[in-house]
């Protein structure tokens, strides 16, 4: 991590830059009347977007609203059916991403698209290495790399492999590359999805600096707080149509959510905040459960019908704790008792046979089987539990799949569609359905709402509460404190690989959680 970084000035968060009047003068990119269809499906219908120099322009919309399609058209990955794009007042027709790049439009995608096994230098310069006597001039590249990255407050070993750095640093390198290559428009597609709070601050600081340099920055995110924190203007798409384009000062949270959803979200929280019922009976007890080098021993009793929220920063040991509880990593100390009986978890099979289920944090890598159908993705954990001999036949599979597609409102054209074609929120529901099909008594959900749209987000939050009412025990790991507060009957806080606090009842509110997470830093400061 860069250490010489000044933290973002908290005062600047509230101070919006006054909207530049006579904005047309510094319009960098205009897309007008954009239409794009795929077969019978209209992905974009007469959409407009105008980007000004020196602004951060948030592009919002639920999954399927058309954000990605619009970005792909602007960056030349797709060609629009109708409509025109002009850069600096000159009409352009991009047919390849390279053309868009040389016209000044750079993109940093959600999954950092760099080369992890090559050095930082290679990643910055690949395809445009400076030459000397016809050979690549590595010394010059190293010098240049240092110069470029120092603009971003990054002082790192540029000869090291990219994969040795954190996602946050990789992201900054991706941005540096995009800005070097393009320099007029920078598109950031969910740049904060896998960053923790301090990393987000650093990223925002960089974005603000680039803005001051006169770049037009498109910012795509699911986090509304970040929209208000960073952006000057917001464009909202819904179902492929433009809902509106507003200056941020003219909007409040509610109206923005209403623009995105066409409805209000307030009811979600109202409905959930109330539940304070005591959990019924203890189900299991992790005693001094731990694994050296991964999670320090912790004590935790889980009751039927309760949701235990797990809070903590990234790297605090939250995910490691979940992996330990599911037998993916094996505990080297402590014991697990279920109904008074000692259980050893040596592999996920042991956990599943005890009625555990686990929705991992990284859906794509650890969750879905992309090429398998929605149906197969739903039944596979149940089938694994039944064993290979007791195969569910197609009709049985279909019945189970359709039951969950309806119950969880999974939006898919058919149960036989490959699951990779579904949106993130629907994939998450498929994985949830996979475990519900095994009839579990204990579910671990690791960041169940990360990277999914507002609507699906609300549905999953509601589902968690419903499962709790059905008597399931749940452990839910989340970075979103509002969310944890809304469904947890208890909150445990992780810090530095230890379980450091347990909050109950009235203590369950965002500020106490933040205090518990930050406690040590405060002590250190004193």
């Amino acid at each position: 991590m860069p250490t010489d970084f000044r933290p973002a000035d908290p005062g600047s968060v509230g101070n919006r830059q006054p909207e530049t009047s006579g904005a047309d003068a510094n319009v960098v990119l205009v897309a007008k009347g954009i239409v794009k269809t795929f077969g019978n499906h209209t992905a974009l219908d007469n959409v407009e977007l105008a980007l000004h120099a020196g602004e951060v322009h948030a592009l919002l919309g639920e999954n399927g609203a058309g954000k990605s399609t619009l970005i792909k058209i602007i960056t030349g990955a797709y060609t629009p059916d109708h409509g025109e794009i002009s850069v600096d007042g000159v009409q352009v027709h991009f047919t390849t991403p390279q053309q868009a790049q040389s016209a000044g439009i750079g993109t940093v995608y959600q999954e950092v698209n760099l080369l992890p096994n090559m050095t930082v230098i290679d990643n910055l310069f690949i395809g445009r290495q400076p030459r000397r006597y016809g050979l690549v001039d590595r010394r010059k590249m190293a010098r240049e790399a240092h110069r470029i990255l120092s603009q971003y407050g990054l002082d790192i070993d540029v000869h090291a492999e990219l994969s040795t750095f954190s996602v946050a640093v990789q992201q900054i390198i991706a941005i540096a590359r995009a800005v070097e290559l393009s320099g007029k428009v920078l598109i950031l597609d969910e740049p904060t999805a896998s960053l923790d709070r301090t990393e987000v601050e650093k990223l925002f600081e960089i974005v603000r600096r680039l803005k001051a340099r006169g770049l037009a920055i498109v910012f795509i995110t699911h986090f509304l707080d970040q929209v208000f924190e960073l952006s000057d203007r917001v464009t909202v798409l819904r179902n492929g149509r433009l809902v509106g384009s507003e200056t941020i000062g003219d909007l409040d949270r509610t109206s923005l959510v209403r623009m995105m959803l066409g409805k209000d979200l307030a009811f979600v929280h109202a409905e959930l905040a109330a539940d304070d019922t005591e959990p019924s009976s203890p189900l299991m007890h992790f005693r001094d459960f731990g694994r050296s080098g991964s999670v320090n021993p912790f004590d935790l009793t889980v009751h039927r019908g309760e949701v235990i929220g797990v809070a903590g920063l990234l790297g605090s040991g939250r995910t490691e704790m979940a992996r330990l509880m599911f037998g993916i990593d094996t505990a080297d100390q402590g014991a697990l008792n279920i109904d008074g009986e000692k259980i050893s978890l040596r592999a996920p099979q042991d956990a599943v046979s005890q009625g555990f289920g686990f929705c991992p944090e990284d859906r794509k890598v650890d969750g879905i089987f992309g090429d398998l159908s929605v149906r197969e993705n739903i039944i596979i954990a149940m089938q694994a539990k039944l064993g290979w001999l007791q195969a569910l036949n197609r009709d049985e599979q279909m019945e189970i799949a359709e039951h969950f597609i309806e119950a969880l409102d999974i939006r898919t054209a058919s149960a036989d569609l490959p699951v990779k074609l579904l949106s993130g929120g629907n994939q998450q529901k498929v994985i949830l359905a996979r475990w519900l099909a095994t009839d579990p008594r204990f579910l671990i959900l690791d960041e169940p709402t990360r990277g999914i749209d507002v609507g699906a987000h609300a549905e999953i939050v509601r589902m968690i509460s419903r499962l709790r009412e059905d008597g399931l025990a749940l452990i839910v790991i989340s970075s979103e404190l509002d969310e944890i507060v809304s469904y947890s009957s208890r909150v445990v806080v992780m810090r530095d690989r230890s379980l450091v606090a347990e909050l109950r009842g009235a203590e369950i509110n965002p500020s106490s959680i933040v205090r518990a997470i930050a406690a040590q830093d405060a002590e250190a400061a004193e």
Partner: protein
Amino acid sequence: MRIPSVKRLLSPQLIALLGVLLFNWIVFPGFFDVAWRDGRFFGSLIDVINRGAPVAILSIGMTAIIATRGVDLSVGAVMAVAGAVAATCAVTGQPVIIMLLAPLAVGMLCGLWNGFLVSILGIQPFVATLVLMVAGRGVAQLITEGSIVTFNDPVLIFIGTGSFLGLPMPAVIAIALMVGAHLLVRRTAIGLFIEAIGINRSAANYTALRSRSLVLAIYAFGGVCAAIAGTIAAGDIRGADANNTGLWLELDAILAVVIGGTSLMGGRFSIPLSVVGALIIQAMNTGILVSGFPPEFNLIVKAGLIIIILVLQSAKLAPTLDRIIKQRPVQPSIQTSEKTG
């Protein structure tokens, strides 16, 4: 919504097989002639099935291995080992049951070794099976003590050259193995598990699939298939040739699997279509022989076929071809055009 059988019959692999057979018929009008003599069928078509059987059998095991995102380069060498074991049993006068089971046991042992390297030690399949590809022939030579062991055992000869219901034994064995393996993977959940492991090993682990044991078992099965093919090859020439039995056949087996539509990246697979792939390869071999072209052409034609298949299967071309074949526009679902953004 079951897949209609008509659509299944019209798979590109079967169309390709018909195409190759028709081509053979054009260059050699007697190609489809089948005669009945001495209680069995004779003819070029029967030759294709008979000669294609060893590769077809290899491709059955190879399909499952490739579907787990693996590969087994050692099957040709394992054929030689199994052939050597069978021949040695025959000349030393072992009981029939030993003579038939010993090669299979040795083949399974070879497969377990591969599976151990791949599944337990986590070595890349390509490298892991290369070990036995090289060492296997050495082992076979040690067993045969460097010479070609010939035998006159009627049972082994029957397996290599006999007939059952008028069909050559190798073909009968291949068909039985294909049907058995297909039913085994599709009537149980094994097929789904194999595909899941091949598509996403990590997710398979989180889903509590016993990936390790399954992958181990699949390599063992691949070894058994190779041993069956090796026994047939030995019976066919009435001897065990450690240097040449099954030479380069691993490549034909991989090609057959790829023609059959299983991606080398693992995942979806079909054992019957791999067998069709093996028949396509053999039909081309036979076609070139009967048409009187110099056999050297065979390799070039094979290379051409590989290029055509790879082009047809390439991800970039697929939507376009789909459109041409189905004569209707591609209709991605609402979500297709969007990733999570």
